[in-house]
């Protein structure tokens, strides 16, 4: 379960190809609904990469990522909509505040392992979700918080899907680049060591406890930034967007894409965001189809799409090659 497949040079090349594809993609779509959906793919890519740093790189599960996502969104939202703060300032405050929260919570939470860790992070997510619902005076409660302003820079207001696409994806690309760099660094190697064996890492002089908390904090900060972006692009937030099911969806994105693969996280985010849109035509059946697709992909591609799709392609190619002569015989 490596986080980097090739050398740093190859990784950078891969990154630039991906960046080029991302930034030219809207030209082919010429705006429209798909760009709107791709904005959300960008936001979920940030979230999935953030979780993947924790789960794929450091081997620590979190079922409460939606809490950091929601805290980022609500801190940004409340500061700008209620207190008329500058959106950029609000975003920075949100990131710092969530970073501090994650750091403080990280020490007791990451002492836990396995299903205890899963349960503690899950509990954290649910508690935060209930707080969003119950503090009606601040958050607006279940009916949500509206009137959140768009971000703007040098007079350009990010108020169309196309502008938001470039805004969100700039952040997403920065997240990906930082994550690639991080996993190639000394810290990344230490994290991989701790993934394989905590005891061995500790013997080699890695401060395991601090390192786990640090990666938890980084993951939280990325998620908070995604939350701020969400708040300022959608301009309306309600607790439903940050519930337990969102944490679960993020976990599914990481696993379906491929645990430990950064571009896999993008694939997972893209698939899980696009599927419900495609299934809209099934109306009420969409949840059933979604469940089946989830089971089938996980069953037949346990290594995730990044590993499963090339395997499938090779398999089909071999089938086609061996299938042709036998057809001639008939």
């Amino acid at each position, binding site marked *: 379960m490596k986080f980097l497949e090739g050398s740093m040079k190859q990784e950078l090349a891969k990154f630039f190809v991906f960046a080029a594809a991302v930034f030219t993609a809207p030209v082919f779509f010429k705006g429209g609904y798909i760009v709107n959906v791709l904005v959300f793919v960008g936001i979920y890519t940030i979230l999935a990469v953030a979780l993947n740093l924790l789960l794929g790189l450091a081997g620590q599960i979190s079922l409460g990522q939606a809490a950091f996502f929601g805290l980022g969104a609500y801190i940004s939202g409340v500061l700008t909509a209620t207190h008329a703060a500058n959106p950029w300032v609000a975003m920075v405050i949100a990131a710092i505040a969530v970073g501090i929260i994650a750091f403080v919570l990280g020490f007791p939470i990451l002492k836990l392992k396995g299903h205890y860790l899963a349960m503690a992070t899950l509990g954290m997510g649910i508690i935060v979700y209930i707080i969003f*619902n119950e503090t009606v005076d601040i958050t607006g409660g279940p009916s949500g918080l509206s009137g959140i302003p768009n971000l703007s820079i040098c007079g350009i207001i990010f108020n169309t899907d196309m502008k938001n696409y470039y805004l969100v994806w700039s952040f997403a690309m920065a997240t990906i680049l930082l994550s690639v760099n991080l996993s190639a660094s000394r810290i990344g190697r230490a994290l991989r060591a701790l993934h394989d064996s905590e005891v061995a890492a500790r013997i080699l002089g890695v401060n395991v406890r601090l390192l786990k908390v640090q990666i938890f904090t980084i993951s939280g900060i990325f998620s908070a930034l995604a939350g701020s972006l969400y708040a300022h692009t959608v301009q309306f937030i309600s607790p439903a967007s940050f519930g337990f099911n969102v944490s679960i969806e993020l976990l599914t994105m990481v*696993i379906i894409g491929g645990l430990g693969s950064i571009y896999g996280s993008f694939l997972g985010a893209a698939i899980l965001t696009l599927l419900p849109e495609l299934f809209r035509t099934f109306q009420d059946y969409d949840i059933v189809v979604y469940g089946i697709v989830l089971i089938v992909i996980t069953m037949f591609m346990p290594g995730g799409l990044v590993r499963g799709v090339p395997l499938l392609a090779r398999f089909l190619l071999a089938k086609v090659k061996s299938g042709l002569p036998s057809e001639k015989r008939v």
Partner: protein
Amino acid sequence: MELFEQLLQYTLSGLSTGAIYALIGLGFAIIYNSTSIINFAQGEFVMLGGMLTLFFHITLGLYLPLAVVLAVVVATAVGALFERLAISPLKDAEPIILVIITIGGSILIRGVAMLLWGKDTHALPMFSGNEPIILMGAAMMPQNLWIFGITLIIITANRFFFHHSISGKAMRACSVNRIASRLVGIDVKRMMLFSFVISSAMGAAAGIIIAPLTMTSYDVGVMLGLKGFCAAIIGGMSGGMGTVAGGLIVGVLESLGAGLISSGYKDAIAFIILLIILFIRPQGLFGKGEAERV
């Protein structure tokens, strides 16, 4: 005196929801011990129990005890089918992959239930009468007695099965060491199936006995499942009394918190208790501290 009556009232209702959490938690623990999977579909069997009883009793007009039995049978069949179709075929998958499959299964079961029975909330009739029993100033429904009685029977039967029958002992052997169990001739695959059968039957039973008190709908399984998970974690993921105690603790404290502090934070209270317990004792309240093998 008034405060005492209130406390008694909250404790009584807390004990009966706690009994439900205990049953669901035992289901989690049984599956976890024989497969290393945290089965996120556990709550859906609880929902299926309630909804199927409703369907057989109200829609088809069957006699209630018959409807209850049929509901448990169908829910158990769904559990067994799920294990055979989605869990069993994956031999060497990592537990996390299987956990994702149970999440998919949970979404699927919930979706089918929504299609079949709609999104409305329904109430199942009480098993025997709506006359509350007054006990030292606290009111209790006969249904609460049903809950205590049935939970007690299930837990006793469970204990008997795991300690005094060959299959039960084989399942406990699997939870200690799967490879060694296979070497002594235990059919590990079948034990995995058994664990799903037992857990879904217990979940369904829990869903049925609580439905007359709390109403039921297609999405009732999520929160109940998570609370059951809480109970199992507090009990140290053991299939025994630790989980039962965990369920009762969560149920009572949650009920007291909701009554005395704020009902809006009722669900949060259960998880705050859980976090406090985990922070103080990382292996659960009743779990044994384990030396890690390197």
